[in-house]
């Protein structure tokens, strides 16, 4: 990805299965991903591509039927998947924090926002309650909530969806984490609120100098916000590069098709919209060869028998396709 040698998060060769009655679902296969310090990395993919599994693994929040078959999630060089519970507690919420998709369910409905924001500062024994409240109010002001001192006494249902997502972001940033993981943070919001949240995330990166791992299926938002992009398809990284590599010079046929399908990118009005024919493959019995071969307009014989590997195209730009490289 980037030449910067010291990424804050480094996912190496990660493979994860889900155990199901039908057999193991190969949800992630040999995924590599780096989040450089101060950088914003976007993970793009459609439903079932493994985006959510990837970030749950990064936070070690995987459900019970998930099985890590190989690889590591290195946060500052330490493997999150293998550290003891005490060290994990020191990491989560403090050095890496998460903003979830749905701001309606990520806040506790029976506690006031102030109580929740004071409670999550439980590690800080030197500061009293009033000081923690002031800190919470400062953070709410920072994310654009007017009259924060008064609003701390309100309950989540008294805020709009956009305001609740701002509160969730404020809570995630309370300990000034090195890495913020945002899972489709604007999906539940209207477009004018979405624009404000994206603008806020950009400002916060500048002010707090943290890194962001941004997961989305919305290509427009990724283009607006991210420095680097990783494209996931059916559990594999098919392409990665800088945001300009991906949007201006995509090399993997899936990335190209995904960009073509976005109606927001069509210059001329047309009734017949482009699509990607076919369905996502069955991940219980993945076919040999390239995972995208079935739906790929450019597939040839080799694609159906031999799986391509991620091949470097330029500085940090790589694609997993037989048409790329030698």
């Amino acid at each position, binding site marked *: 990805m980037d030449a910067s040698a010291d990424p804050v998060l480094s996912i190496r060769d990660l493979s994860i299965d889900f155990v199901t009655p039908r057999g193991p679902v190969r949800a992630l296969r040999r995924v590599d991903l780096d989040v450089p310090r101060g950088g914003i990395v976007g993970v793009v993919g459609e439903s079932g591509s493994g985006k959510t599994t990837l970030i749950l693994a990064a936070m070690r929040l995987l459900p019970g039927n998930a099985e890590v078959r190989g690889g590591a999630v290195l946060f500052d060089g330490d493997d999150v998947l293998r550290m003891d519970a005490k060290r994990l507690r020191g990491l989560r919420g403090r050095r890496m924090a998460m903003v979830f998709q749905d701001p309606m369910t990520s806040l506790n409905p029976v506690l006031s926002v102030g109580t929740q924001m004071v409670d999550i500062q439980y590690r800080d024994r030197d500061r009293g309650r009033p000081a923690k409240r002031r800190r919470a109010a400062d953070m709410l002001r920072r994310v654009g909530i007017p009259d924060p001192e008064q609003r701390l006494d309100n309950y989540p249902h008294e805020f709009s969806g*956009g305001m609740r997502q701002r509160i969730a972001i404020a809570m995630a940033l309370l300990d000034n984490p090195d890495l913020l993981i945002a899972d489709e943070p604007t999906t539940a919001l209207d*477009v004018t609120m979405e*624009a404000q949240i994206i603008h806020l995330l950009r400002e916060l990166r500048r002010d707090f100098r943290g890194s962001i791992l941004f997961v989305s299926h919305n290509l427009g938002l990724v283009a607006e916000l991210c420095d680097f992009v990783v494209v996931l398809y059916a559990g594999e990284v098919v392409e990665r590069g800088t945001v*300009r590599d991906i*949007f201006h010079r995509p090399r993997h046929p899936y990335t190209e*098709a*995904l*960009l073509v399908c976005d109606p*927001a990118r069509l*210059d001329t009005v047309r009734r017949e919209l482009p699509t990607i024919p076919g369905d996502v493959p069955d991940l219980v019995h993945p076919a040999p060869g390239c995972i995208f071969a079935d739906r790929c307009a450019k597939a040839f014989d080799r694609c159906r028998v031999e799986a391509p590997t991620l091949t470097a195209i330029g500085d940090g730009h790589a694609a997993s396709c037989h048409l790329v490289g030698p």
Partner: protein
Amino acid sequence: MSALLEVENLRVRFRTAGPVRARLAGIADPFLDAVLDVSFRVRAGTTFGLVGESGSGKSTLGRAILGLVPVHSGTIRFDGATPVGTSDAAFAGFRRHIALMFQDPVASLSPRLTVKSLITEPFVIHGLGERDRDAEARRLLDMVNLPASFAGRYPHELSGGQARRIGVARALALTPKLIIADEPTAGLDVSVQGEILNLMARLQRELGLTYLVITHNLAVVRHISDEMAIMYMGRFVEHGPTAAIFARPAHPYTHGLFAAQPRPDPDRRREQVELQGEVPSLAHRPSGCEFHTRCPWAQARCRDETPRPRDVAPGHALRCHFPLPAPSPYPSATVREREGPAASAAGG
């Protein structure tokens, strides 16, 4: 072409407090207007796009046309002169000609019924149970490009796109004239979204259907609709031919909505957010022009005087004292296709 659906001065209000509570609490006006002074017509065989943010009243308007929420005042005419929403008996006959595609495809399908039961249920409801339901199911599945074997499946065995197709098939069951589609592509991946919209376009060509599409997705409205309206706090703030509105949005809210669209081009990121804040509560409607609290161009007159609808071009109407002469900020108009290294280096 004649108008299939005509709506005039429609108003839908909801009660916010019961009569006793309103009296005790001293609430003079215990109502809020979800739809206010809405007039438009949809020509047969065309697609009308209804755009707005959550709470703008777009779904309520769709439901009022279907008779699912009571109309306070105004008229809805369907296919000629007969008013919709008068008596239940007169209305039942019309319901056959108007179908609804629900917002959440999976939740709108009963999990215990097979696809066959789901798509042929309208025949039973409308007393047409004597028809051959197997043959009808095959016919409907064929229309939405699904194999006949799907008739025996249950909703949990369907993907999101397939569930949408079943929703389309069910809407088509009684060969309606008008289909009201509430967020037909919400929650779908972009590759599947195109399939559903293409299917809807093909059915429109083949069956002469008329669509009223309710959505917040501007990119979709731009491609599929002939005319569109933008709703804000229950009113049509701008309304006219889709191409004209995208070329030259004249209402500041439309302008702000277009500017808020994410731009799928990393070299053209927005530096500023044009529309700040959020939609005010319907219970506390701002005076004058409802948009003046968020409008970057608001002046004193906007606070005091409610703008009347007026035409800026034939068929292109808006409610604004000071229409914008600005060019369209809609991002797609500026997107360049794949470009050479020189252009992207300049952007970096």
